[in-house]
């Protein structure tokens, strides 16, 4: 008979070979990060252009996003539909994502179709058409999407939270822009964004796949080696300050739940205590068995899930707890979250720290299973201007972190008296509950996070 009363002991751990990342350079000086991965005949490419919405002029917020939508609407000899058709014929998946800091264009292709797919990608990068009719259509689509976002409580909560947190800086506005700022964007603005910001100077290339280093250099030189736009544009950022706790709400009529965000400005990704902070947040709200999820979901049943995260922009950091709770428990949930933030500063048990370290160290290999996962790990380091060696040192650094460093990181990275609290829900139900938490009236915001009078 097998003994079921205790968990089986693990065997000897298998060797994990961290993929080797080679830093190469194209003829024009663009850096190419290369990883050879041979399991399948596929190649994943990531063109990372550090040209996000933070470069939007203040009266034209949404410009970077709209540029990312228009960049593949026709290039070279192909119009928008023909271009999409060419990728489909190859069975290649081309997609564009963007945020405040970057526009990333990724391509997943079969090895046999890699060269042709890369050629198409290079046409998008080097010779976008930016035709007026495409501009008009996509701009209207963005404006209608902004209209639709008024329906989505999770989006409203995050938007309002970031507006209060980041004040007048560029991280205070949604990447998609606002109704009145998108209205001010013209096709010439898109062309100018492409000229000045979407440049070779701001670009890094990552390729993970079944090809040799020589093939990679040859192919990328062939298609992108002549890209020569090396003007650099700079924007300045001043990190906003934390303020004494304030509670806000956004009215959403008849809502069944309230969407809650609680948090504050935090350190950037390159902070010296990044690792202990990550361990601490794993315990606080970074995974299912965390204190916050245990309390709000598994103990109280207030929610389907609750979590906390340190979010890292290129120029700033923030700490954010998010959850959606049934509307009657809005106030109680906010109180419990604050209690957890106070609690983590008082005491973290050695068992909790052991658990978190084990979790982070042992899950590390699984972050390198797919081709895109490998590339995205490298991308994170490039965004934050960190050394590629961070990957090799990561588990050893976690192992070496002392318990007092984790405790100290809670004191230096969690500030329960300097919170921004936002709840999106029906005014009738939410405002009184928040008043009970804080003792004074919560401040009402509009959908964009502006204070209403």
């Amino acid at each position, binding site marked *: 008979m097998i003994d*079921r009363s205790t968990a089986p002991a693990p065997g*000897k751990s298998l060797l*994990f070979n961290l993929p080797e990342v080679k830093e190469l350079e194209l003829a024009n000086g663009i850096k190419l990060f290369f990883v050879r991965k041979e399991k399948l005949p596929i190649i994943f490419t990531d063109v990372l252009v550090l040209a996000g919405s933070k470069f939007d002029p203040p009266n034209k917020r949404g410009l970077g996003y709209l540029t990312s939508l228009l960049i593949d609407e026709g290039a070279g000899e192909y119009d928008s539909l023909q271009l*999409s058709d060419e990728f489909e014929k190859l069975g290649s998946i081309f997609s564009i994502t963007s945020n405040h800091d970057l526009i990333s264009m990724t391509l997943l292709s079969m090895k046999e179709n890699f060269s042709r797919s890369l050629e198409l990608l290079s046409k998008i990068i080097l010779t976008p058409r930016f035709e007026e009719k495409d501009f008009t259509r996509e701009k209207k689509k963005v404006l209608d999407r902004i209209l639709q976002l008024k329906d*989505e409580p999770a989006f409203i909560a995050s938007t309002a939270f970031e507006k209060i947190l980041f004040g007048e800086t560029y991280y205070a506005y949604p990447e998609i822009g606002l109704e009145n700022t998108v209205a001010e964007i013209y096709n010439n603005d898109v062309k100018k964004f492409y000229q000045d910001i979407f440049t070779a100077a701001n670009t890094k290339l990552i390729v993970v796949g079944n090809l040799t280093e020589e093939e990679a250099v040859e192919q990328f030189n062939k298609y992108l080696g002549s890209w020569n736009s090396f003007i650099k544009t700079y924007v300045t950022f001043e990190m906003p300050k934390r303020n004494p706790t304030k509670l806000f709400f956004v009215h959403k009529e*008849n809502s069944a739940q309230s969407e809650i965000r609680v948090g504050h400005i935090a350190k950037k990704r390159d902070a010296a205590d990044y690792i202990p902070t990550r361990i601490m947040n794993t315990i606080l709200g970074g995974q299912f068995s965390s204190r916050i999820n245990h309390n709000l979901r*598994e103990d109280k049943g207030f*929610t389907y899930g609750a979590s906390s995260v340190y979010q890292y922009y290129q120029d700033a950091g923030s700490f954010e707890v998010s959850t959606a709770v049934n509307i009657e428990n809005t106030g109680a949930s906010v109180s419990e979250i604050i209690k957890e933030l106070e609690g983590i500063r008082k005491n973290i048990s050695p068992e909790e720290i052991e658990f978190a370290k084990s*979790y982070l160290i042992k899950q590390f*290999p699984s972050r390198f299973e797919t081709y895109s996962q490998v590339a995205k790990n490298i991308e994170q380091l490039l965004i934050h201007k960190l050394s590629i060696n961070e990957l090799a040192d990561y588990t050893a650094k976690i192992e070496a972190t002392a318990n007092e460093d984790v405790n100290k990181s809670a004191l230096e990275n969690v500030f329960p008296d300097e919170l921004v609290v936002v709840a999106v829900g029906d005014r009738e139900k939410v405002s009184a509950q928040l008043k009970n938490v804080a003792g004074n009236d919560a401040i009402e915001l509009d959908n964009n996070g502006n204070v209403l009078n």
Partner: protein
Amino acid sequence: MTKNLLKIDYEKYSLANGLQVILYPDQSFPLVAVNVWYRVGSANEQPGKTGFAHLFEHMMFQGSQNIPKEGHFRYVQEAGGSLNGSTSIDRTNYFETVPANYFELPLWLESDRMGFMIPGLTQEKLDNQKDVVMNERRQHYENQPYGMAWEKLFSNLFSADHPYSWPTIGWMEDIAKFELDDVKNFFRTYYCPNNATLVVGGNFNVPRTKDLIEKYFENIPKGITVPEIKIFRQNLSETKKIILEDNVQLPRIYLAWHTEKAFSTNDAALDILSDILTSSKNARLQKSLVFEKQIVQDISSFQYSAKLDGSFIIVSTAKPGIELEVVKNEIENGITNLISNGITDDELMRAKNSLKSSYIYSLQKLDLIVDHLNHYNFFLNEPDSFVFDLSRYENVTREQVVEAAKKYLLNHKVELNVVPKE
């Protein structure tokens, strides 16, 4: 070359208690994935007790005789693994991916809840998870724009006694009513080894794993034969139009027709029909409604096929100021045009090429592969069906796509309009 890559080497056998086991060794990465499918979903429920299969899935993470509440998460995460479960209309699955040296852990966890679930049950745990599930429902349905549309659509497409007529998560009033005895009865009926298949994939030693599977699972007693689901062929005697008011800015139209179940004669042709109508910028309805006429914000479609039946669905959100009637007419014109004029070789090739490479791309993740082995085993009784599945699509002709459209999309349908509240 594609065919060789998609050929999966596996071994399948059954234990004396009826548990099916499928082993798929793959030494390429130091992970092991365990995936259990129970052949029970919301279709096994009764009216008045809907949402039970899903609520029960939650209870399976509340511990059993030797595993404390939340223990599954704690053990697997401490090992650096990931885990979850999901419930559909036809089946419920549970899965863990762990570093290879922890391969025994999921076997222990899964066997304890398969064999010794009831001693871990308490009223307190049930009350807690009822609250969690009601909040899951609020978050994903009540508090989402258009969130109530799907259950409205399916409860009109299928008659009230058909098990696809209610939502997997269940009606709110049913969730609130569940009692501990319901949980126990459900467990005894459906969570027995003879109603489950265990797949283990990845970097493990085959003889040793077989031995451990035997030890962990063999003494779990065989259950009763699971009751069969009785269904009736569904036919709409007329087209139904339903208007639903919601907190939305833009109106949205849903069209639904009865079609065929998964892996039946026209299933693959209907998938390709859906691709040709909406899956890319060049797809017919995308091109005409989104790109050229610009009367809709988005449009999508799919052949939603399951174990007992299937339906074809088109969903589209109108641009401000555009009537849903106009959108509907355009969609219907697109369909009649396709039926009268046929489709081109280029359209068919585009759809097939995208499908072909997507099969190769899907081989990147072990947990997806093992779930697919269970999927194929469930529907086809043959886990290694990647090649067969792909060939279903490769063999579809232009004529078959048109015939499938003609056979189903000219019939009566359900039309749901979700419109902004006055």
